[in-house]
């Protein structure tokens, strides 16, 4: 919490001696343009959509598109909560491991004969408990979140490995499949509905409530926030709880979709989710960014993955593209601003 949660992303841009964390001022023209980041993302999303439609005749099929949403819905649910956490200057790298642990707990519950409602409760409960553990270490004990969650990343998945080893749980009840495989109406999947609900919920929480304003205040200056009467540790703790809860929800969806649990489930998702959040325009230094941006980033990543998939491009090559996109998207505004300044 001190000095932006010890997130090691606090260098003065390009070694300038100026103040280190003033996103509002250093991003002046960007912030003033307000929606421009989201507009840019929207343009990119539409462009990729049209390109995909041009390149593959199979793209515009509603069922194909519906299937494509599975690429991002589960990750996006977590990304929304993660977005708030990163706005507040913290980070949670343990989310994928929470999925593994929650999924393992659900698998264990199945062996004891649990029904669908109990399974969902177990998944969400384990997610909440893991989030509370992270929150306790970061918010109450004041430890740097990046290190704590690297530790719990190993710990949570490690427990899943201890329980399961090289085994797998399966035999989930048929009614449990509804979350990951069910359709609400025509091609609209249950996961899509959950995606929309969580997007709206976190959008409202961040942009329309005093809690959301507190999150921005903490991200910009935790000390000033504290002295303005914001209960910083409490807000941080709640954010970790929410992130854990969303990881639990994603675990329910993913487990239901796959129908089985292995300890390597959702391996490496934490980095994809952080990429999604940063691509969505959330500053990794905290203090700025919006939920709609993350929604668009999630859709872009889903479209790219799906489009490349239709062109038979292997997944690992797509990841090069995502990596380049991530760096380019962050670097371009910085370089553009420098160019603008040089011209003056």
């Amino acid at each position: 919490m001190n000095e932006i949660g010890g997130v090691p992303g606090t260098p003065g841009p390009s070694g300038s001696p100026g103040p280190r964390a003033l996103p509002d001022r250093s991003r002046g023209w960007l912030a003033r343009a307000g929606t421009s980041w989201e507009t840019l993302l929207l343009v990119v999303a539409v462009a990729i959509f049209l390109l995909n439609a041009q390149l593959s005749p199979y793209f515009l099929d509603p069922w194909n598109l519906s299937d494509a949403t599975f690429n991002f819905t589960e990750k996006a649910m977590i990304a929304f909560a993660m977005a708030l956490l990163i706005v507040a200057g913290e980070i949670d790298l343990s989310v994928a491991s929470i999925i593994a642990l929650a999924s393992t707990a659900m698998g264990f519950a199945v062996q004891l004969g649990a029904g669908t409602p109990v399974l969902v409760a177990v998944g969400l409960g384990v997610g909440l408990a893991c989030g509370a553990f992270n929150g306790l270490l970061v918010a109450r004990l004041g430890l740097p979140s990046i290190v704590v969650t690297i530790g719990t990343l190993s710990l949570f998945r490690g427990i899943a490995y201890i329980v399961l080893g090289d085994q797998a749980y399966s035999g989930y009840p048929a009614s449990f499949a509804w979350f990951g495989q069910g359709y609400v109406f025509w091609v609209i999947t249950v996961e899509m509905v959950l995606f929309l609900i969580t997007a709206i919920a976190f959008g409202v929480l961040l942009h329309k409530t005093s809690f959301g304003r507190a999150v921005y205040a903490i991200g910009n200056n935790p000390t000033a926030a504290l002295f303005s009467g914001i209960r910083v540790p409490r807000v941080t703790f709640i954010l970790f709880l929410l992130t854990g809860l969303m990881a639990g929800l994603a675990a329910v969806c993913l487990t239901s979709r796959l129908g089985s649990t292995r300890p390597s489930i959702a391996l490496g998702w934490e980095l994809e989710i952080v990429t999604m959040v940063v691509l969505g325009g959330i500053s990794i230094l905290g203090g700025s960014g919006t939920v709609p941006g993350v929604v668009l980033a999630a859709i872009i990543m889903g479209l790219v993955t799906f489009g490349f998939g239709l062109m038979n491009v292997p997944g690992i090559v797509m990841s090069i593209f995502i990596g380049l996109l991530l760096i380019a998207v962050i670097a371009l505004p910085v370089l553009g601003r420098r160019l603008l300044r040089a011209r003056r």
Partner: protein
Amino acid sequence: MGGLITRRDGLLALALVLLVALVAWRFPTFATPGFLGGVFTDSSMLIILALGQMTVILTRCIDLSMASNLALTGMIVAMTNTAVPALPIPVLVAMAVGIGAALGALNGLLVWKAGIPPIVVTLGTLTIFRGLIFVISDGQWINAHEMSDGFKALPRLAPLGVPLLAWSAIVVVLAMALFTTRTGTGRALYAVGGNPDAAVYAGIDTGRTRCIAFVIAGGLAGLTGYLWVARYAVAYVDIAGGFELDVIAACVIGGISIAGGIGTVVGALLGALFLGVIKNALPVVDISPFWQLAISGAAIIVAVLFNARAERRPGRIILKRAERAGSSTDSTMVSGGAS
């Protein structure tokens, strides 16, 4: 702080000795020189990588791309060896260090010149480097029979009875100890991480120093890339996958502060050895290797709890007290000065 050995390093060394003693109590063979030497050799690559990561973390940055850099460099070196078996091995080793350093320089320049937060840069290059391996190798494996004998034998050569793999770790440890305690650039690492603003006023180019740290980390990752591929005699897309987190874990256990400016070579060495001992002790005491991940996770959390006490800076005590007062009950305002 900043010396070669700190009190915390002593505590960690004690913990390490206790750990070894505990295992040896049940299984005396574990404490024999031969066995412990094997553990050191097995930890060599983690030690080298941890020292690279340490230089970066000291400057308040982080390098998540080290394992991908290792894998990419290893693949390039292995492919070169397969294509031109006559090329002398020292040339290949120099090539590995060079390629690794170049990849590190890419990270460093993006952090320095483009002003992108290091965690974002290296998150990006982590996936890009890994993807490039697939592109250049077309997803194929380079197997033992395709590599030349000299290529595979080098890490196993044992001058003075110590494998070259262990020698390389020893040399890197000594070089880094000299670098961080006896050179201007080495001291600049601590200054930049301890207080970047003050470092600027002391005449240190923070961006350049960070870039140098990334180049060093990259070069060491490249060296490890050759060692890894030669030792296991195989190169494919996923080698050392996820190893970047083990490296950071070794640093955290070694007492290197993620907030920059605090940490020693001895600490990083001990942190890496700690993980190495756990990894090698589990099969000896007949615990399933599946426990390893959870144990290292728990060790990280315990270590960071310890670090937090050491890192509390005297200048911030007043503010800290105010923060604690503010967080427990309704805030009683104490003068909030130093930051």
